């Protein structure tokens, strides 16, 4: 009696606009912790990506949402209801596996119809929905084929149709494009975005490809060693990374280790271990802006300007030697060794004043807003 009273007193625990919610979720396998206290909310209709290097726990996180693993601690909510005790076959989610896991002994049509058949829908409705799902992924001409007779890209489409036909609340994608070649992957990326926009479903995708995550997602969670490093929109993750790992993992960057020497509201002065004085944007958290604190400055290669003569700025310009310049078509990729010893990568749309010799003496510079200080 008392207990039930306390339960009803508990505040409403979920926001109704969340399809998936993870609260301090841990997963331990034989003494190895794969997921350490992951907290995330996936909003309804969102394309959410979990991005990280291999072994960071991202696939385990997805398998926890699908129900193939049960959390060692913490809670998983799907559509606001606790799913910890719900087996995978009763969860309103469907998964597209990295290996596709198509049923080789069934035709494409039977593969797609499988989910509806085990749920004992009536046959005419099954036919109808399977036809529409196959049309959706442009595979209506292949209904009678068997999975082994299809190419990788076609199998991928069947796997998508097989999941989508069940009208899940959330579609889980485990490295969906990992097995495809580059050209096909680009095509499927476009189709995934289209599907997401047309269906208005919530997508949760696991990937190690930062470019894929940046181009497809509404929001990204970057994971490392079982923890979430940062959650944010692609722009936030790229422009305002919270940790050196995120800055380094998403895109290319140049990192300078040092400590904060001066600080005001709009900028900090960071003295590197090699003695350079950098003016960059301050860390996001005001607590991290104290003078004397260790910090790392991150400067993106495309923010750096390369010139032959000393630029007309007072801050953030350094002398160095061009080590090599690689022409990449759309841009030139340069490596510059500063006189203080650091090696920088620089991305220029074109080399200044035409051709530069290797080993030429150059200046690099950037504006005070182009770099960012990160707490260590």
């Amino acid at each position, binding site marked *: 009696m008392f207990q039930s009273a306390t339960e009803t007193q508990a505040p409403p625990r979920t926001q109704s606009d969340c399809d998936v919610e993870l609260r301090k979720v841990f997963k331990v396998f034989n003494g190895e912790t794969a997921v350490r206290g992951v907290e995330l909310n996936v909003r309804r209709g969102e394309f959410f990506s979990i991005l990280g290097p291999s072994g960071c726990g991202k696939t385990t996180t997805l398998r926890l949402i699908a129900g193939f693993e049960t959390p060692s601690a913490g809670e998983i909510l799907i559509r606001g209801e606790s799913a910890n005790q719900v087996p995978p076959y009763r969860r309103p989610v469907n998964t597209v596996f990295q290996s596709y896991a198509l049923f080789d002994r069934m035709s494409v049509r039977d593969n797609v119809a499988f989910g509806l058949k*085990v749920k004992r829908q009536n046959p005419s409705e099954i036919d109808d929905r399977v036809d529409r799902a196959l049309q959706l992924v442009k595979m209506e001409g292949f209904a009678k084929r*068997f999975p082994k007779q299809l190419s990788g890209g076609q199998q991928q489409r069947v796997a998508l149709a097989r999941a989508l036909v069940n009208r899940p609340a959330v579609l889980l994608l485990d490295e969906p494009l990992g097995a495809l070649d580059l050209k096909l992957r680009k095509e499927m990326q476009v189709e995934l975005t289209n599907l997401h926009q047309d269906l208005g479903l919530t997508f949760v995708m696991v990937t190690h490809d930062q470019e894929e995550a940046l181009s497809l997602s509404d929001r990204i969670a970057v994971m490392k060693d079982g923890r979430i490093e940062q959650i944010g929109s692609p722009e936030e993750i790229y422009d305002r990374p919270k940790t050196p790992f995120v800055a380094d993992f998403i895109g290319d960057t140049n990192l300078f280790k040092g400590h904060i020497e001066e600080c005001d509201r709009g900028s900090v002065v960071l003295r590197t271990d090699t003695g350079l004085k950098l003016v960059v944007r301050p860390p996001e958290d005001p607590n991290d802006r104290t003078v004397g604190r260790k910090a790392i400055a991150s400067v993106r290669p495309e923010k750096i300007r390369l010139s032959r003569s000393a630029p007309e700025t007072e801050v953030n310009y350094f002398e160095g030697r061009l080590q090599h310049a690689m022409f990449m078509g759309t841009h030139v990729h340069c490596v510059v060794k500063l006189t203080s010893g650091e090696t920088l990568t620089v991305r220029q749309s074109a080399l200044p004043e035409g051709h530069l010799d290797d080993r030429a003496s150059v200046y690099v510079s950037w504006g005070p807003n182009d770099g960012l200080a990160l707490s260590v």
Partner: protein
Amino acid sequence: MTETANSPPQQHSPQEDAIVDMSQTRTKPNLSWQSIFTVAMFLFMYLPIGVLGFYSFNESRYSANWEGFTLEWYQRLLNDARIFSALQNSLTVAITAVAVSAVLGTLMAVGLSRYRFPGKSLYLGMSYLPLIIPDIAIAVATLVFLAALGIPLTIWTIVAAHIVFCLAYIAVVVSTRLADLDPNLEEAALDLGATPVEAFIKVLLPELVPGILSGCLLAFVLSMDDFLIASFTAGAGATTLPMEIFSRIRTGVKPDVNALSVLLIFASGFLAFLAEYLRLRGERSPN
């Protein structure tokens, strides 16, 4: 720079001619040592069986000399009630042992590949041990065990002993098939709403059927063939076919035993072929 890179391919044409010449001279002489060895190997393996077949059509009862073609021994065989009762015993043993082992062995292989539990590797090693333990050890152990418990020897004690090795053979064949399957297959079925039982029956089992069948045929042939274990564990009157044959040749090889052996060789050859065919068909594409 580009010129030096291009020059080696220009020298290629004479080399290519040389390659063509080599492949033309590669035709082997008709009588190489490999073909002599191969023929000798096959004679070594199959000549005794050929001789057996030869005598099974020989009219002479005792002599090794050819005295004319006859089917008498085959006819006599078909009218021999003892042979038929022994065959019936052998089939009862083999079919029962294989049927029980098929169910248990499949479950064993699936359990061992799909679930994590403490002591798994020990269990894995122990379950395949009957494959390497000598038959005589299994035979003696079973006999001593049955005697210690005071269980009377009947045809069913042979079945029990045969299940020991049939189980291991079927489990091995099924687990090789399982190892080739996508580990996400069952998860995909669960994900689509199938209960674990439905996932096993609708998705996993159809993939395993070729493996189970070929394992069963292998175990069946081994059970039919077994003399040692059966002769230790058989009760009175439960004589299997190999036991019957052995008791007959103790008083000298008779032509009807030759005829029986020829039939057995053909039957087991057919089953072995069938098992291999099923296995290969299962590995290739469906339909």
